[in-house]
């Protein structure tokens, strides 16, 4: 077994807890002093920084929600002055307002470390060329894995996303060893390789790190077969760090949470009560080493489980499951976060019927999004061109707001099924 930081990744539970206790207390003190929102919340709850001595005290602290980040946009949650910030990223989530996060140089070093841990866990060595097909930009995917690859001393190939033919050429000509992208794109690459007559068993490519969207065991098998690699899961979120918050090892049995930097809780989203190992609940993260943007008890709205069982890889960090759903109605379509409320907003802005239905499906390897809208009388016309224009305008508006294409279909009034007066808004056919 190989590790990037063996003494940390295989530390005893006592050691991990000792780190967490000390780092949590320090972080709480720091945010109390520097982030007005946390000071107000803690004051209101009657909690002083010195009340937080161990991770047992975590539950005394208030939660942080995505809404808090929007309310304090852009820089209200930053815990260091701008002179110490060296990088900004922004969330891909487009629920109205984006959120922006900051990193100090130390934060970037930690991020690179945890991504390097992931790379080593999937068998990468400094000899390897890491083909990064995550987007580079405000999205954290590209830069995150890139930093890890360089930290490990690999050769980073910053291909970024798009242009599949070029991706395949680079993969062959440059001899990429490890691929990092979204799982749906990996499937697409596999399919495109086959179409192009590329024998993937002849390529050096042997492992892939895939995240940023939910994927199934079937997708894993498909990718492993079509690209002739081992496919590994990675989890992360912009608010906490980006990719690498937790990482899958060669055992492919859940993702190890980097507990020296983050504390994971699984809570009952209604009561806040902690769920035992193996039981589903909302995943909550606290940052305990982050300098620029250290969130406490951030509610991810992802549903998952954790296990403290020993992993055969020797790593002692707790493992989390793949997210199994959401506590809200967020959909992840082709790696992009989509909320039904966004679609509703567009429809209302465009003076359309509030009777709509969102149909998500997977055709071949790509997610599809269809928005069915009941046509209203005032939008009706006796010519095709006029009605097609309504569809086209809606399509364009949705594309610009969501960042992905949606097919708009106008349907007859009353055709969208309603149950107890309320229309079923989302049909996700990708779910089994």
């Amino acid at each position, binding site marked *: 077994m190989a590790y990037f930081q063996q003494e940390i990744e295989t530390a005893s539970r006592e050691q991990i807890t000792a780190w967490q206790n000390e780092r949590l207390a320090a972080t709480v003190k720091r945010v109390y002093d520097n982030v007005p929102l946390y000071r107000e919340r803690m004051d209101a709850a009657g909690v002083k920084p010195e009340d937080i001595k161990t991770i047992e005290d975590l539950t005394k602290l208030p939660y942080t929600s995505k809404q808090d980040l929007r309310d304090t946009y852009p820089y209200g949650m930053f815990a260091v002055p701008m002179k110490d910030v060296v990088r900004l990223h922004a969330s891909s989530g487009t629920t109205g307002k984006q959120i922006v996060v900051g990193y100090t140089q130390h934060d970037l070093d930690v991020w690179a470390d945890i991504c390097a841990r992931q790379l080593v866990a999937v068998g990468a060595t400094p000899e390897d060329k890491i083909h990064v097909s995550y987007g580079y930009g405000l999205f954290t995917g590209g830069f995150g894995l890139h930093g890890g690859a360089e930290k490990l001393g690999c050769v980073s190939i910053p291909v970024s996303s798009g242009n599949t033919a070029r991706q395949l050429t680079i993969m062959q000509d440059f001899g990429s060893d490890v691929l990092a992208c979204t799982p749906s794109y990996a499937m697409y690459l596999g399919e495109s390789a086959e179409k192009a007559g590329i024998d993937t068993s002849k390529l050096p490519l042997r492992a892939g790190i895939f995240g940023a969207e939910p994927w199934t065991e079937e997708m894993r098998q498909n990718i492993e077969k079509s690209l002739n690699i081992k496919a590994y899961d990675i989890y992360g979120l912009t608010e906490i760090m980006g990719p690498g918050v937790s990482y899958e090892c060669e055992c492919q049995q859940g993702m190890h949470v980097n507990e020296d930097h983050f504390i994971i809780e699984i809570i009952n989203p209604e009561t806040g009560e902690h769920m035992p190992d193996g039981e589903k609940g909302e995943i909550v993260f606290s940052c305990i080493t982050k300098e620029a943007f250290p969130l406490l008890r951030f509610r991810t709205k992802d549903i998952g489980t954790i296990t403290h069982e020993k992993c055969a890889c020797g790593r002692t960090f707790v493992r989390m499951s793949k997210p199994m759903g959401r506590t809200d109605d967020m959909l992840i379509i082709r790696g992009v976060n989509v909320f039904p409320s966004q679609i509703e907003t567009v429809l209302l802005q465009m003076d359309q019927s509030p009777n709509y239905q969102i149909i998500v499906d997977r055709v071949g390897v790509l997610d599809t999004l269809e928005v069915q809208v009941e*046509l*209203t*009388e005032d939008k*009706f*016309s*006796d*010519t*095709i061109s006029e*009605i*097609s224009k309504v*569809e086209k305008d809606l399509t364009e508006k949705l594309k610009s707001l969501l960042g992905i294409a949606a097919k708009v*279909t*106008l*349907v*007859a*009034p*009353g*055709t969208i099924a309603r149950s107890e007066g309320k229309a079923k808004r989302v049909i996700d056919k990708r779910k089994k």
Partner: protein
Amino acid sequence: MFMKQLSVFVENKQGALAKVMAMLSDNGINMRAVSIADTQDFGILRIIVKEVDKAKAILKESRVIVSVTEVVGVEIPDTPGSLSKVLSVLDEGQVNVEYVYAFVTPGKSESAYMVVRAGDNVKATEVLNAAGIHTLTQEDLEAML
């Protein structure tokens, strides 16, 4: 001065058209002319009937999207070349035609009738009349049927 057409939104799926037709037939509405424009997702059914208001009310009651569109009714001899003449007149008069369809009324008239939806119905009527082509109003149609 125009004829009236019922324009009906119909989804492009099995049974949708039959449903609309059944609503009309159940209420004894006889159609004089029918035309459908279709796309992958939906179609627009265009119907000429004598009892426009009644037909509209029936469809509306069943939550069908329907509107009444003014169209130019053009009487032409039921012989080859007469539609061509109408279209050249409109072309020369620089009138755009959105769509056109035809009907005959056997036993009631020797003529054929064109339903023309022009970009500008008023101008279409003017240029046709100026060329000696007779246009119909809804009243003309109702009187004939």
